[in-house]
Structures are given as structure tokens and as C-alpha cells.
């Protein structure tokens, strides 16, 4: 169930929550505050993000909150600005509550590209090191075109999270900076990548050799930067 932008909800959301609450369901409430929208810049959006997260638990009986600060120009969660919002909001909530918080992934580049996997790796490091309890993804190529998502992006998300857990936050900040600096200069020419049908043998559900090679290349780069991938 999603709140509305910004600091809004509607009757339908409350009706659905009432049903789930009485069924004893796990209730996830999401909200993706928009950077550059009504509330303005990075700090403003982070303040709103904290308020929105609290709303999920205080008024909507959430079991956990799914965040996703999104950039109004690029429609992604992996930009420098939106990651700062998510990182600060999560760290503030983590330091002062035991609330269960999550974040979701919208990358600019699409499947089977080095840029897509690098965007995901950067955000996975961010969410893990800022104390989030769940990471959810990935809507590659901004999640707006049919079939531009595959399991390989989730493999990167998971493997990077595992390698990041326990690292010093200072080290993580430095590594994210290097990764973001590399891909943010390519926003205008970000590759859309390939459809699931072109990334996998659909019948056997095995990724193509090409995608495995791209994945291997990004893994190598992350290892060179100091990430201990298993």
C-alpha cells in the first residue's frame, strides 16, 4: 500500500489496511518522496522522508516501511541526491528507533549493462550501511518499459549487500562516491539495456553468456575498489 506525495493518503489505502490488519497480514506501506517536487531540495526531502516513514507506523499500522526517494528529472533512486536523502533518513531513523525500514531500486540504465549493475551496487552499499533491514529490487531502466528487469540485477543487489554488511561507514561513503562519480556523467546517454527475453534463455531460465560477462566485469571492478564479494 502506498501513501501519496507528499504527506497524503486516501480512503482506499485505509480500507485495505483495515482488511489486512484483521487478517494478521504483514503490512508494507511504501512512499517515494520526490526530490525537486513540492518539497524542494535534498535536506527538505529527507525531513519529509522521516515524517512519511513515521506516518506508516503511527497511522497506517505498517509492519515495515518501503522508502524510495526519487529524482524528479531522472525518475531514479540511484542519483547522488536521492541516495543522500535515503542514507540520511535511514541513519536518523535507525539511530532513534527499532522500526523496520526498507528501500527500493530504480536504476537509469537497463539490464545487461555495466552502468545498471554499478548503480545497483552503489545503492545496495548505501542501504546496507545506513541500517536498512530490507532491500527490494530492481526496477531497471526506470521500471517504465515492459520486460526490462531480470534476476541478475537482484543477484548484484544481494551479493553487494552481503559484502557491505559490517564495513565501516566511512569506507562505504568513499566507495559510493567513486561509483556514483563514474555513472552520473553518463545520465544523458544511459543505455536502456536488453529485455528479459534477450538476457535469459526463457525456457531454461539461464542468463546469457553476455550478461554473465557483464556481471563478472562489474564484480571485478568492485573487488578492485575493496569490496570483498564472496
Amino acid at each position: 500500500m502506498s501513501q501519496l506525495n507528499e504527506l497524503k493518503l486516501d480512503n482506499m489505502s485505509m480500507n485495505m489496511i483495515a482488511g489486512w490488519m484483521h487478517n494478521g497480514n504483514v503490512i508494507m506501506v511504501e512512499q517515494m518522496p520526490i526530490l525537486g517536487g513540492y518539497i524542494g531540495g535534498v535536506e527538505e526531502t529527507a525531513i519529509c522522508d522521516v515524517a512519511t516513514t513515521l506516518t506508516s507506523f503511527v497511522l497506517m499500522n505498517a509492519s515495515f516501511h518501503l522508502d524510495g526517494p526519487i529524482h524528479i528529472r531522472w525518475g531514479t533512486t540511484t542519483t547522488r541526491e536521492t541516495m543522500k536523502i535515503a542514507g540520511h533518513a535511514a541513519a536518523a531513523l535507525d539511530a532513534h528507533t527499532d522500526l523496520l525500514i526498507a528501500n527500493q531500486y530504480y536504476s537509469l540504465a537497463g539490464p545487461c549493462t555495466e552502468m545498471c549493475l554499478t548503480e545497483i551496487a552503489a545503492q545496495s552499499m548505501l542501504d546496507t550501511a545506513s541500517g536498512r533491514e530490507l532491500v527490494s529490487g530492481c526496477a531497471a531502466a526506470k521500471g517504465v518499459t515492459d520486460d526490462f528487469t531480470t534476476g541478475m540485477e537482484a543477484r548484484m543487489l544481494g551479493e553487494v549487500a552481503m559484502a557491505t554488511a559490517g564495513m565501516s561507514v566511512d569506507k562505504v561513503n568513499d566507495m559510493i562516491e567513486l561509483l556514483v562519480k563514474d555513472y552520473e556523467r553518463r545520465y544523458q546517454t544511459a543505455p536502456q539495456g536488453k529485455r528479459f527475453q534477450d538476457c535469459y534463455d526463457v525456457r531454461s531460465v539461464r542468463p546469457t553468456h553476455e550478461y554473465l560477462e557483464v556481471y563478472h566485469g562489474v564484480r571485478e571492478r568492485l573487488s578492485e575498489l575493496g569490496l570483498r564479494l564472496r
Partner: protein
Amino acid sequence: MEVADRPLTVYDAYMRSTEGPKLAESHWDAKVVPEGVACMKEKYDIRFGSEFIPVDRDLKERLFLAGMELLVTTGIYNTDTRRVIKVTESEIMEGIKKAPRKLQLGEYRDAVFMEPRKGNASQKPVIQGGPTGSTVSEDIFIPMIQSYAQEAAVDTVVNGVMATIGGVPSTANTPFEIKATLAEIRGMREACNRAGRPYMAI
């Protein structure tokens, strides 16, 4: 800070949204929220440096307090009743206390647990794989979801939106939306079964 009589529920939220201050949605969007946020930014001196994750304890505390006070001073707007739901600080604290601290996602050997990690703990977060609401063609829905469920790093799966059902677009607020949603759920479960993880949370 006054003492709350009990934590709020979604029923309290609804009742307050029938009684709270009434105002136009455009006024909420363009004036109330932006001005409220700007006021909190100023009051708590919220300024970020170059880092993505703050290490300054004081900044983390000020940001938390700014967010909480924003919720108290502005509230939440119900777009149907066009009224504002107000909450107090003590009600927020009760809501935080009442929130679950441990969730089981999935069942049997496919179950995983979601618990507070506290900072960058060595315990990894739960990994939820899936298209995250992206649209997926009907004919490849199951293999695509299987591509997530079969990954060793993935703990739970999140669905995509089935673009059509029986070739008809699954347009919101039509019967086909419901039909497609039910097909998504069946497809998700089938994909988990094919991956050998039948009780994975979806």
C-alpha cells in the same frame, strides 16, 4: 509531552480525517508542506555535507526530531475528505513502540526473519528480488519471476505488474486489474515452486 491514551490505528486515522481542519489539496501541496518543511530545516539547522551516510550523531538526531515535528505540526492530508489528520508527539512515540521488531517472511525452510540491524551490522538486510512494480509481459511472467526466486542471494520475491491478462490490458479500476492481480499471485507462487522454494515470501 502529554501522555497518549493508546497507540493509534487506521480507524483513528480515518475518524480524524473526517473531523480535522479542511483545506484545498492545492494549498496543502503548494504551501502547507513546503513551508512546514522549510521551517523545520531552519529550526533544526539541517545541512548535509558531501557524505551519503551521516556519521555525525547530532545531525542524525536533529533530522529525526525535524521529521517528527513536521508530522506533528503539519499532519497528514486525506485527499478524499480533504481534511488534515493531526497527531501528537506522544502518539508518534506510542506508534514507534507498538511497531513490530521482528517479522517472519515466508514459511518452513524458506522463511527469513527481518529484525533491526542497528547501523551497518554484520547481519545483512533481507534481499527482496523482483521487478518492483515494473510491467511484465503475460507470456514470460513466470520465468521472469523464477529468475529472481532461483538466485542464492534472494530471500523473498516482489512482483511485477502483468501488463495484460488474456491479451487485455490490466488497466487500473477495471475488472481486468483484479483478474491480472490474481494471475500474478498464482504466477509468483508457481515461479517459487519451479525454483524449489515453494514457501518463499511473495
